[in-house]
């Protein structure tokens, strides 16, 4: 079953709106894409369109929080984090305002709109700001839980929400705790750390690896910051070979966060899957993922390479 995480997000906002009068939603003229249009319809008095003004919307969110509201601030991820970064840093994070930033149309999902519209840097931009929680739920079920968890969390947070229908890989009764990763599949030969839609691809890769005789442990790292160091350390100590998979650049993203941590605490090979420091292309969603290697086949390949490096064997040849 595939569901677009943004649908779950839009519905979760409406639930929260019913439960708490302090929830307000701000959008930068993309309410239909972000699906905050559902909240707008249900609570028109608590929905604010700031127009195409990402710097303004970010700092306006800080003002709402200052006066006691819980604002969810929405726009396309690259424009929001790009144009609104300094406002996120100063007016929200340094000022410790309780604002929820939600980035949409993430990764490859803008498809043929091409390189200008492919957010591949937003995790990196968010991750460097002190005190900012960074999330990317794996599927629609987890997106609902994450949205509710953010409303209950007192502090600034950034969440990426997927646009495309994504396989549902978590269950309603799975625990969801901010900062606590979930093991979706236990294994002892290699660790695959994934977030967002890449979690489903990691599980596909793990099935393929099993057929090849390697038992992969798949970790759903829905909270990218703060890292669940305990679960990463335990898995890396066990497998001593790690691959990371994200719909984002490998520079400064989730894989970077994992590599930084493991380099200091448990230095093992870490192979990062994501865009490799290049801009995208105008193509279908699937073709762009193929172009960047955001595929289960690539995860299999990199997991095997990590194992080869660990074992001192030559990796399979590649360009």
């Amino acid at each position, binding site marked *: 079953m595939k569901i677009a995480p943004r649908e779950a997000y839009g519905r979760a906002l409406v639930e929260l709106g019913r439960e708490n009068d302090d929830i307000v939603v701000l959008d930068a003229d993309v309410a239909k894409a972000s699906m905050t249009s559902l909240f707008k319809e249900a609570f028109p008095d608590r929905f604010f369109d700031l*127009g195409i003004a990402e*710097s303004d919307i970010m700092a306006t969110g800080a*003002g709402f929080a200052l006066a006691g509201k819980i604002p969810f601030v929405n726009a396309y991820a690259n424009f929001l984090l790009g144009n609104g970064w300094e406002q996120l840093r100063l007016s929200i994070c*340094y000022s410790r305002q309780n604002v929820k930033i939600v980035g949409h149309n993430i990764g490859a999902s803008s498809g043929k709109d091409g390189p200008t519209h492919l957010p591949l840097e937003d995790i990196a931009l968010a991750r460097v700001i002190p005190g900012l929680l960074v999330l990317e739920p794996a599927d629609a079920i987890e997106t609902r839980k994450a949205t509710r968890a953010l409303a209950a969390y007192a502090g600034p947070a950034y969440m990426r929400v997927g646009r495309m229908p994504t396989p549902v890989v978590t269950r309603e009764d799975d625990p969801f705790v901010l900062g606590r990763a979930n093991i979706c599949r236990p294994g002892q030969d290699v660790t695959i750390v994934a977030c967002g839609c890449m979690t489903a691809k990691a599980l596909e890769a793990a099935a393929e690896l099993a057929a090849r005789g390697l038992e992969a442990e798949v970790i759903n790292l829905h909270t990218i910051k703060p890292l669940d160091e305990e679960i990463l350390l335990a898995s890396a100590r066990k497998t001593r070979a790690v691959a990371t998979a994200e719909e984002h650049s490998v520079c400064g993203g989730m894989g970077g966060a994992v590599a930084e941590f493991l380099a200091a605490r448990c230095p093992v090979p870490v192979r990062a899957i994501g865009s490799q420091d290049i801009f995208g292309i105008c193509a279908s969603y699937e073709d762009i993922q193929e172009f960047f290697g955001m595929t289960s086949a690539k995860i299999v390949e990199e997991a095997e390479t990590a194992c080869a490096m660990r074992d001192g064997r030559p990796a399979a040849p590649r360009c």
Partner: protein
Amino acid sequence: MDNKEQILAAAARTAKNMRRSIIRMTHMAGGGHPGGCLSATDLIAVLYEGFMRVDPQNPRRRDRDFFFLSKGHAVPALYAVLMEKGFLDPREITDFRAKTGRLPAYPSCELTPGVDIASGSLGQGLSVANGAALAARLNGTDQRAYVMLGDGELHEGQVWEAMMTAAHYRLASVCAIVDYNKLQLDGSLDEVKTLGDLRGKWDRFGWRALEINGHELSEIYDALAEARAWREGPTVLIAHTIKGKGVSFMEGEVGWHAAAPNDRECALALKELSDL
């Protein structure tokens, strides 16, 4: 509320004390931006003496008015008024720009009671004010949100985004104050990048624009009262000011945008300010 004459008398005393604090603060710290503090002093003094509903015993009380110093480099002027109004101990004056204490080089709401938002990266304060005003409207309170903007700060595009937001939502509780001292770091505003018909621009962006002498306390009072009474939308006070106002050798001198007075200059300035 006190009558206008009492408020103006209090504001005159406060402004005088603020100017002395600004000189001492920047002198002791060996840094800061005295020119743009002294130009803003009279505006801030009247605002706090006559209009801001704040409580030094409970700086974050829910029904307070907001003051956002968007031109964060003028923070000594804010610390000075917070000392006058009992939010800060005047003995903290030595802590400006110090490693410890509550008076960092730019405003921090985490460190300093009476400061509502951090600033220092220019252009953000008006957006914050709009958010607070929209929230207050939802909450059904009559809180007001004042923002002080530098004139050079108006080069920042975000200010114009926020001007549109305030006009679109008819935010009558928002009052912007432009400290129009016409000098910035690299020289005169007209040399760096002119603002042209500033009043006309605000006016055409849907604001009620009042042009005043930013050192005439009575004019400042009347404009703030008029802004408070206006229910149709946001008001801006375009306050013509003099950079370095009150210290003869600083007035109109671009070099005092960011420079600390030395011992001799400090003594001279304090003497002039005592004689006012």
